C-alpha cells in the first residue's frame, strides 16, 4: 500500500501556498467560509480529544482567519453523519468509515493525508485476543464461543476481521450461532478490551500497530492504552489472531470546501510535525513520522470490501 500512497503527490497549489504570507490568506478567505468544523473520532475521552486537537484548531484559525471548532461526536457514526450532512468540514477517519461515506455519496469528502508510523509505513493490525486463563490460543479454540467486534464502522474492530477471519478456516463464519455461539458489537475498542478482560465475551478484536512487545500492549494502540491505564494486565491476555496490515485511515476534507481552504489545511497538517512536534503528537495520537498525501485510490480495496460486506 505504500506505493499507492506515494503516487498521490502534492498539487501545485500546495507547494506555492506554503510560502504565501499568512495575512493575505486570512483576508482573502474570510469570505469563502465562515467557520471550519473539525470532527475528531473516539478512542480517548472527549476532553482529551479536544485537548489534543486544540492546537491544530488554533493554527488553522490563525491561517484561515475564521473560527475553527473541534467536535468530538460520541462514535464513528456521529462523524460520518456530520460529514455527510456537511456540518463537519474535516476529519481523520478510519478506512472503513471513509468507505462508508464514499459509498453513500462519493462527492462528499476527499482523502488528502495519511498518518505514517515512525518507520514510514502507514498501516496497523487488527488483533484478536482472549484471556490467558480461558485456554483459548487460536481461532480453532473459539468454536462455540462468543466473539466480539467493536464499532460497526471500525476497520480493525469490524470490517477487516469480518472478512479475514472467515477465510482462516473452512467452517468459520461470522453468522451468530454458527461457528461462534454469538457475535456481538461492544461499541468500541475500549469496550471490547474490558469485555474480554471481564469474560463477558471470549475473544474480541481491537487495533495495535503490532510493533514492540505484546506485554506492553505493543507500541501503540488500544491495548497499550488499556494496559498503561491499568485496566488490563497484559499477562492475562493472549493474542489469538492478527490481520494483514490495514492501511491507516485518511484525513478527509469536504469536497465542497474552497480549494484555497483545502490547500491551506493540507499544508498545515502535512507540516505540523515540523511546526510543532507536541501538537503533531497529540493530533496523531502518538509518535509519528508525520502526515503525507494520499488519494482515494489507496482505499479502493477497502471500499470494495465494505461494499461486499455491508452493502450500499
Amino acid at each position, binding site marked *: 500500500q505504500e506505493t499507492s500512497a506515494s503516487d498521490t503527490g502534492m498539487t501545485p497549489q500546495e507547494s506555492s501556498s506554503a510560502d504565501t504570507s499568512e495575512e493575505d490568506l486570512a483576508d482573502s478567505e474570510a469570505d469563502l467560509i465562515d467557520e471550519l*468544523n473539525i*470532527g475528531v473520532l473516539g478512542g480517548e475521552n472527549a476532553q482529551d480529544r479536544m485537548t489534543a486537537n486544540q492546537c491544530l484548531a488554533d493554527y488553522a484559525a490563525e491561517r484561515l482567519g475564521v473560527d475553527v*471548532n473541534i*467536535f468530538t461526536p460520541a*462514535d*464513528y*457514526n456521529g462523524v*460520518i*453523519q*456530520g460529514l455527510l*450532512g*456537511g*456540518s*463537519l468540514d474535516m476529519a481523520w477517519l478510519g478506512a472503513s468509515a471513509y468507505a*462508508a461515506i464514499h*459509498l*453513500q455519496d462519493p462527492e462528499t469528502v476527499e482523502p488528502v493525508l495519511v498518518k505514517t508510523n515512525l518507520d514510514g509505513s502507514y498501516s496497523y493490525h487488527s488483533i484478536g485476543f482472549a484471556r490467558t486463563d480461558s485456554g483459548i490460543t487460536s481461532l480453532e479454540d473459539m468454536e462455540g464461543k462468543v466473539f466480539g467486534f467493536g*464499532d*460497526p*464502522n471500525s476497520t480493525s474492530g469490524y470490517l477487516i476481521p469480518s472478512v479475514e477471519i472467515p477465510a482462516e478456516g473452512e467452517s468459520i463464519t461470522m453468522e451468530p450461532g454458527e461457528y461462534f455461539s454469538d457475535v*456481538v*458489537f*461492544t*461499541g468500541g475498542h475500549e*469496550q471490547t478490551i*474490558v*469485555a474480554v478482560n*471481564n*469474560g*463477558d465475551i471470549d475473544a474480541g478484536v481491537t487495533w495495535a500497530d503490532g510493533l514492540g512487545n505484546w506485554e506492553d500492549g505493543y507500541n501503540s494502540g488500544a491495548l497499550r492504552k488499556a494496559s498503561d491505564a491499568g485496566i488490563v494486565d497484559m499477562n492475562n491476555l493472549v493474542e489469538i489472531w492478527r490481520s494483514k496490515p490495514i492501511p491507516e485511515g485518511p484525513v478527509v476534507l469536504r469536497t465542497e470546501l474552497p480549494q484555497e481552504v483545502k490547500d491551506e489545511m493540507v499544508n498545515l497538517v502535512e507540516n505540523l510535525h515540523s511546526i510543532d512536534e507536541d501538537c503533531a503528537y497529540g493530533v496523531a495520537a502518538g509518535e509519528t513520522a508525520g502526515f503525507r498525501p494520499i488519494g482515494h485510490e489507496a482505499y479502493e480495496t477497502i471500499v470494495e470490501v465494505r461494499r461486499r460486506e*455491508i*452493502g*450500499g
Partner: protein
Amino acid sequence: MTDAASTSALRPGVTDAYLAMVSTRRLWTTTGILIYVLLFFGGFWIANDRNAGGFWRGLPQIFDFPADVVSEAAENAARLPGLLLEYFPSLIETVNIAAGATLIGGILGAFASLLVTRGLAPAPWAIAPLRRLLDLLRAVPEIVVALILIFLLGGGPVPALIAIALHTIGSLGKLFSEVAESAPLDPVEGLRSVGATWAQRMAFGIVPQVGPNWLSYALLRFEINIRASAILGFVGAGGIGYDLRNTMSFGLGMFDEAAAIFMLLFLTIVIVDQGGSMIRNKLTRGRT
C-alpha cells in the same frame, strides 16, 4: 352616582394604590418577558453557534436521513416482515428491561414512599435523609449508572435494568409519597386503635386507598422506562437500542433493518402510551 363620586373624592388612595400596583406589575411582566426573550434567543444563538451545522442551513436537510432510510426500506419492502420478526426478540428484551425495572422500582419505591411520608413514617427522623436519597436517585441520569455498571458487570440488560430501577425508585418514591400524603388518615387511626402494627396499618389503611393512583403513576413510569431502556441499549445495554445503533452505524445497506427497528420501537411506544393512558384514565376516574 353622585354618591360614588363623592366617596371616590374622599378616598383617592385606593385608586392610586391600584394604579401604582398595575404599573409595577407591568414593569415586572415586561422585565420577565424581556429576560425570557433574551434567554431564548440568546440561548438559541449560542447553541447555533456551538453546533456544527447551522439552524437555517440544516433545515432543508432535515428529511435527508429519513429519506435515505425510507428509500432503502421501500426497495426492500419484501424483507420488512422478516426483519420485524428478526428484531422482535430484541424488542422483548427492551420491554422486559423496562417492565422489570418498573416492577422492582415500583415495589421498592412504594416501601420508600411510606418511609418518607410525614404522618406515616415509622421513624420520622429518617424522613429527611431518605428524601435526599430519593432525590439523589432521581438526579443521577440512568445512563451514568448504567455505564458504570456495564464496567462492573459487563454489558447486557442487567445494568440497564438496575440503572432504570434505581431511577424509578427515586421518582416513584416521591410521587407515591405525594399521593400517600394526601390520603385521609382516618382508616390508619382506626387501625391503630385496634392495636395494629405499622405494617398492618400501611397495608390496610393506606395501600388500598392509594393503590389505583400508585398503579396509574407506575404505568406512566413504565412508558417512560421503555424509552429509557431503548436509549440505554443505544449505549451498550442490549435490547432494541443496541440493534438500532448498529444498523444505524452500518448506514447504507442496513437502512432497511434500521427502518424495521424504527417501526418496532415507534409502534411499541405508541401502543404503550395509548394503552397506558386508557388504563390510567380508568384507574383515576373509576374512583371516588
